[in-house]
């Protein structure tokens, strides 16, 4: 069988390209939702860490900081695939695979996003907080209205990089029975008994996504530079 035939067999016979479409759809859904969850959770973790580092030492703060520390250690110290399987087979046994994957990847991503956002918050000049507080704004209003917008802007490229990494990391979702992009290639292989062609196509799709996102990242970086309003 020549290469053209293999492509035809892999993609067209029985409309097998639909597997790739469905897989791509699931990969995108999991990645986007997990990133949103990761940014929300990561921001909360970052705020806890920053407040603690700035000397907040109330009882609640002590507890929150201890939890945050444990969270970061455990999540960064174990492989994402193990976390995913623990979530699926132990913690949330009756869960639908895709929500389980979103939560797992979101929780995992948060641990990395937290560090990024923490550095973003700390890169905002102390005078900004002082100006906000001296106007009578509460510490929460100052954080939400003044510090976080500047912090997010400072680290937007880094968060977008996390997004790019996450696209590739979700390729282990097949281990909990999700038909993501990678798994779709696997399904096609099991039908055609040809491993090479579907894998090439799967790799190609990932590559195109990542290159596309990297282009967008470049645009974001240029936009941010301009919006410094100088």
């Amino acid at each position, binding site marked *: 069988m020549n290469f053209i035939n293999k492509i035809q067999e892999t993609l067209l016979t029985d409309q097998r390209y639909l597997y790739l479409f469905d897989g791509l759809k699931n990969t995108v859904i999991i990645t986007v939702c997990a990133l949103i969850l990761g940014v929300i959770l990561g921001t909360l973790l970052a705020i806890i860490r920053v407040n603690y580092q700035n000397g907040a030492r109330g009882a609640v703060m002590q507890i929150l900081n201890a939890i945050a520390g444990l969270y970061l250690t455990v999540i960064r110290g174990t492989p994402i695939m193990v976390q995913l399987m623990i979530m699926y087979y132990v913690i949330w046994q009756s869960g639908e695979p895709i929500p389980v994957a979103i939560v797992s990847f979101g929780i995992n991503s948060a641990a990395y996003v937290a560090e990024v956002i923490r550095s973003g918050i700390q890169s905002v000049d102390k005078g900004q907080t*002082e*100006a906000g507080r*001296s106007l009578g704004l509460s510490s929460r209003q100052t954080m939400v*209205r003044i510090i976080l917008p500047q912090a997010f802007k400072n680290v937007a490229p880094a968060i977008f990089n996390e997004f790019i990494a996450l696209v590739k990391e979700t390729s282990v979702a097949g281990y909990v029975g999700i038909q993501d992009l990678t798994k779709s290639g696997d399904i096609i292989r099991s039908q055609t008994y040809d491993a090479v062609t579907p894998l090439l196509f799967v790799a190609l799709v990932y590559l195109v996504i990542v290159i596309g996102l990297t282009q967008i990242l470049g645009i974001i970086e240029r936009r941010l530079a301009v919006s*410094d*309003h100088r």
Partner: protein
Amino acid sequence: MIIVKNLQKTFQTATGEKIQVLRGIDIHIEKGEKIAVIGPSGSGKSTFLRCLNLLEQPTGGEIFFEGQQINDSKVDIDKLRAQMGMVFQHFNLFPHLSVKRNITLAPTLLKLKSQEEADEEAIRLLERVGLSDKADAYPNQLAGGQKQRIAIVRSLAMNPKVMLFDEPTSALDPEMVGEVLDVIKELADDGMTLVIVTHEMGFAREVASRVIFIDEGKIQEENEPEEFFTHPKNPRLQDFLSKVL
């Protein structure tokens, strides 16, 4: 209006070392007074000013604002600060917000004004300092003197009872100092109570109702400006004035 009794502040450094910066400051500031604070660098002027609105927590003594002790855990710090404007050496405008939004953010968030009222007030205040054409500009598009005038306007939009200035012209190019001092002088003429840390001796002499000299964490001398500058008594002040005048 503001009564400070035996105010002390000791900082603890990261290494655990203790530095006593304020060693017992006493002062009564009446409504409408204009207090100029002068003294060598590192003498505790900023720390004193920042204790007045609790940006620094005093480690000893008492501060009263309109009869109420403010360095007390029961006080609502945010409500207190809303009544005291503060202008910083480095402006600290919010770079992600337009000039108008810089001015209206606090009054609207704290529900003192509706957005429309706050916008009108912002335009009125900007006209007063000659910057109404900058309402939609962003801070980084402005020159230092313009930034500082807007920082003053941002504080004024809260209708404060007193304004605190920490070296408001020290970060400015010389040609921009005048425009900022003019705004502060106008405020003083309108009867605003103000406390200003400054190195502009001419300005202190012209505008202040009282000048105080802080050195080594204490008020070493205080007087009305004429007497203060022409007949300084404290040898340190004499020495300081001979260097800066």
